[in-house]
């Protein structure tokens, strides 16, 4: 993508080019991620926003190369600090995971081992990648817990003894245990209350200040708008709009972005919400042309026939025929 190239500056941590991840089901091929290109700069906090099924989690799992059959990455490049993750051997990729890219999942209860103490789980992760003895690793685990706002003695707790928010803090501690430069958080606060969410977000922002790049995947547009430097809007496997958070919210270009903003209740914008017509498409049989056209109030003839290009408008990228 020429345009994406021209927009990004030099200090890029992550460069994704033309990435497609498909799921091969009995009903047909589901294009969960469909030729996506994006960049992430050093110390940048990026928010990927979309509804369930838009491909945002699949994109994250593709970066980590954690896609399981019947899913498969079918094309594209994921350049991370210069190396193409898709060309690495499994063994090399395992070293990247955790050590260079950390990931926080939505449900901390299913990602933590219920039978093992918190401390042991962190120690195990550290010892897997670093040559340190148990005592040293345990000390590091305590420091990690403290860095996410938990008392160090929580190393002796089992996951069930912690609340949801505390467990998610443990997950972040695990994800940063090996000091990765990139942290991917997939809906880290979806199951949590707002106050706990705010505390988790504060930790992510601290991670950014310490020099890491952050990818926050969320369905909560206002959360992404508030916390991230840049926003990517995904719809039906495509990135339909991408740009500076403040500008994107102030002046959305893609009709989907605009519709989404107008349909979300907002505590401080005392306004009526507008219903967005229709529903997200079946990705095995997506509509021809622009996948959003059946729901689009501005759809033209060409939208029904041809896929829109990704166009640069005022420093923003938008995949829509309106701007051609």
């Amino acid at each position, binding site marked *: 993508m020429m345009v994406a190239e021209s927009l990004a500056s030099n200090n890029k941590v992550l460069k994704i080019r033309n990435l497609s991840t498909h799921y091969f089901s009995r009903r047909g091929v589901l294009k969960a991620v469909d030729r996506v290109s994006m960049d992430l700069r050093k110390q940048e906090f990026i928010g990927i926003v979309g*509804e*369930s099924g838009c491909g945002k989690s699949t994109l994250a799992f593709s970066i980590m190369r954690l896609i399981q059959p019947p899913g498969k990455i079918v094309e594209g490049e994921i350049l991370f600090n210069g190396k193409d993750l898709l060309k690495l051997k499994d063994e090399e990729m395992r070293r990247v995971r955790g050590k260079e890219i950390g990931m926080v999942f939505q449900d901390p209860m299913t990602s933590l081992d219920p039978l093992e103490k918190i401390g042991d789980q962190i120690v195990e992760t550290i010892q897997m990648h670093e040559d340190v003895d148990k005592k040293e690793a345990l000390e590091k685990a305590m420091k990690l817990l403290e860095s996410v706002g938990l008392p160090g003695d929580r190393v002796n707790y089992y996951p069930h003894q912690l*609340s949801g*928010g*505390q467990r998610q803090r443990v997950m972040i501690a695990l994800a940063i245990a090996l000091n990765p430069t990139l942290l991917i958080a997939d809906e880290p606060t979806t199951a949590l*209350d*707002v*106050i706990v*969410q*705010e505390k988790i977000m504060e930790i992510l922002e601290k991670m950014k200040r310490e020099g890491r790049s952050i990818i926050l995947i969320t*369905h*909560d*547009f*206002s*959360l992404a*708008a*508030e*916390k991230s430097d840049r926003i990517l809007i995904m719809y039906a496997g495509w990135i339909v709009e991408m740009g500076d958070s403040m500008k994107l*919210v102030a002046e959305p270009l893609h009709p989907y972005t605009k*519709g*989404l*903003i*107008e*349909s*979300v*209740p*907002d*505590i*401080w*914008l*005392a306004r009526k*919400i*507008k*219903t*967005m017509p229709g*529903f*997200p498409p079946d990705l095995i049989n997506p509509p021809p042309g622009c996948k959003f056209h059946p729901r689009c109030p501005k759809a033209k003839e060409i939208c029904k026939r041809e896929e829109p290009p990704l166009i640069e408008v005022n420093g923003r990228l938008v995949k829509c025929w309106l701007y051609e």
Partner: protein
Amino acid sequence: MSEILRVENLKKYFPVQKSFIEVFFSKELEFIRAVDDVSFSVEEGEILSLVGESGCGKTTVGRMLVGLEEPTSGKIIFKNKDLTSLEGEERRAMHRHLQIIFQDPYASLNPKMKIGDHLIDPLLIHGLASNSEAKEIAMEMLERVGLVPADQFFNRLPYQLSGGQRQRVAIARAMVLKPEFVVADEPVSMIDVSLRAAILNLLLSFKDEYRLSMLFITHDLSVARLVGDRIAVMYLGKIVEIGDVDEVVQEPKHPYTAALLSAVPSFEKKDLRIDIKGDVANPRNPPPGCRYHPRCPFAKKECKEVEPELTGDRHRVACHFPLEIKID
């Protein structure tokens, strides 16, 4: 406006399951005080938003209103009758006017029952229509909630519907009895973002058309503000603040309300930072005095000793030292 529902000193204590050995050594039963002395009223045609974090007791309040949970004590006065003292036929007749919409549309519909029958059954149970009339009413209601063509949806099974469509069925099922009061328990929290507005607007349309009253339970303050005329904030089984939506949101008096407000994400972030400490206390053992005091950045000696009453006129707050702030 006249009052349709009044809740007085409502309490629900759940006994804590104990092991045999614990029972053997201590005679005292322990309780989770899920709802602990809650009072409020709802006017005809009014929506009261009930907000709070998970575990604060808001869902239990809703379940007691529709009779899915027996109160430990207190009164639920609906249309001048105390529901807690009614039994049998009389109680069933009253509950026709008091319906509920649940959070999870995947769990609240019968997977083996056709969509149409979900609407026909309540009509038949309450003897409001004959078989053929019931079908007609059901079809009209399916259309009303946007499930068109209704005759196609009528014969489908829940698994053939999306989450948003299922929630429309749940709304239709509640509305088919023309209730005067509906408890909506987090009706959009499991719905896709772009479809939420449609469901919320649908619910609001019934309010206008039927002069429907509603208790709208949600953890999302943005939604609470949008749909509610008034708002009640719960913390650890108690209402800590209640009043007109705009007043509570723009001039919160309770530090907990203010802390919630400062944590809500928004497209237009306000410069409001009211902190909150630690985690929610165990409802088995709520802190003495004000239950919020261990987390409150403004707590003083009095807060640790004396439990504050809910005081005030229309905008009421349970706090010894209410805030005086205004958010524009």
